[in-house]
């Protein structure tokens, strides 16, 4: 291989590397153009410098041209973000909140486990193995939650980029909301709702065993999942509800205002949520305690199963009543705010 062939090989590798950072449809074209231009630069430098167009000169030319990823960036009309500067402060804030809440929940769980069982468990919990378990659990929960949060914000970033009528020239000071505006949305509130719905939907679909009651045994705390408690959750209906709630909140975030239609959608979602709760209560039955004997003290199994079932169904009844009350309040508000014309 001649010196010139070596230099051209380096240029070819460079052009290919720059193109690799670009969208697929641009690559071939940019590679051809860059190769031609860089070869010309090389020959020009060799001619004016009265030196051979060898690998050393190619290295100098390419160094001057710049690092491939940086050169590729100059081809992009706009920088691309997973989470852009507009959303990043919110993302940072909620990530911090999530981590603090997780740490607080874990701290409470430790206190609960230490105080809830027989004997002094604190030395075990804070021992070497206990601490390692704690850190691993925290990391697992943190990765899951931050992952869902990142996904939520990445979706928001894309939804907002496509927002119609968001051009600065469309902005009209007359459209500014009143200082006290009942139709104004709270961005922070909506972002939190979207995140909470995404986390709950993920956990209930993929980690249902994490939901239930905590039972303290001599060996430590054990979770009894809802299914073992005889609680039947209508998964399909719940997923439809998650999807509806996510769509509504994303839409509100995009439109930045409540309207009569979105108020009605919220009301319908509330009523649908109440129906799901009622369906879950109606389908649930006292559990078969045979399933429990492998890990619960046989003398207490029936009492515990009854208690667990009642605690969960009672909580669901409370949630149902609260949802119904909230739905009625919303209905009254809608009818007052948007009276039906006679």
């Amino acid at each position, binding site marked *: 291989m001649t010196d010139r062939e070596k230099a051209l090989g380096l240029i070819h590798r460079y052009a290919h590397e720059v193109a690799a950072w670009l969208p697929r449809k*641009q690559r071939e074209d940019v590679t051809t153009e*860059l190769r031609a231009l860089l070869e010309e630069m090389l020959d020009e430098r060799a001619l004016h410098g009265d030196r051979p167009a060898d690998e050393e000169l190619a290295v100098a030319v390419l160094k001057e041209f710049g690092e491939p990823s940086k050169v590729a960036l100059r081809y992009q009309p706009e920088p691309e973000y997973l989470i852009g500067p507009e959303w990043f402060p919110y993302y940072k804030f909620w990530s911090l909140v999530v981590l603090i809440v997780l740490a607080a929940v874990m701290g409470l769980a430790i206190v609960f486990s230490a105080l809830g069982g027989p004997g002094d468990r604190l030395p075990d919990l804070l021992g070497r193995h206990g601490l390692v378990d704690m850190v691993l659990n925290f990391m697992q929960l943190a990765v899951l939650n931050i992952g869902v949060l990142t996904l939520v914000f990445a979706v928001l970033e894309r939804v907002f980029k496509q927002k119609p009528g968001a051009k600065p020239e469309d902005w009209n000071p007359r459209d500014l909301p009143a200082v006290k505006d009942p139709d104004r949305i709270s961005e922070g509130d909506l972002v939190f709702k979207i995140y909470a719905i995404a986390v709950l939907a993920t956990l209930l679909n993929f980690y249902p065993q994490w939901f239930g009651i905590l039972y303290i045994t001599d060996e430590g705390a054990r979770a009894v999942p809802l299914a073992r408690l005889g609680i039947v959750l209508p998964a399909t209906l719940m997923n439809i509800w998650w999807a509806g709630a996510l769509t509504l909140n994303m839409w509100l975030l995009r439109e930045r205002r409540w309207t009569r239609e979105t108020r009605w959608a919220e009301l319908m979602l509330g009523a649908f949520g109440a129906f799901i709760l009622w369906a879950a209560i109606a389908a649930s039955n006292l559990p078969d305690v045979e399933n429990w004997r492998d890990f619960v003290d046989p003398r207490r199994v029936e009492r515990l199963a009854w208690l667990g079932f009642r605690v969960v169904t009672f909580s669901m009844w409370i949630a149902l009543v609260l949802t119904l009350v909230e739905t009625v309040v919303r209905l009254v508000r809608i009818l007052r705010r948007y009276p039906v014309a006679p």
Partner: protein
Amino acid sequence: MTAGPHLEHLDGLSLELRRGALVLGVLSQLSEEQYGYSLKKLLADAGLEIDEGTLYPLLRRLESQGLLSSTWRVQDGRPRRYYKISAGGKSTLKAMTAEWESLAKAVGRLLK
């Protein structure tokens, strides 16, 4: 007090100052077809130095914005992409030139 802290942002500020001027310079020289390297030399001869790693991506960006059009041709045994200002580019150049002249006058008065 040293001059250092005041000059530490000079590169970034100069780059910002040059950015718009480069677009204007490039558009102004493409009433006749040029390929990347010939355009670079044309600009350099007029005193506007621009490195290749900036110029070639800039040409592509201006083309994707519809301000330039391009064709491939083989000349001297090399494939070359020739760029020319488009109709949209001409009206943009006209507007930018007016803007530049007004800005240059105003800044000139301010700097006196």
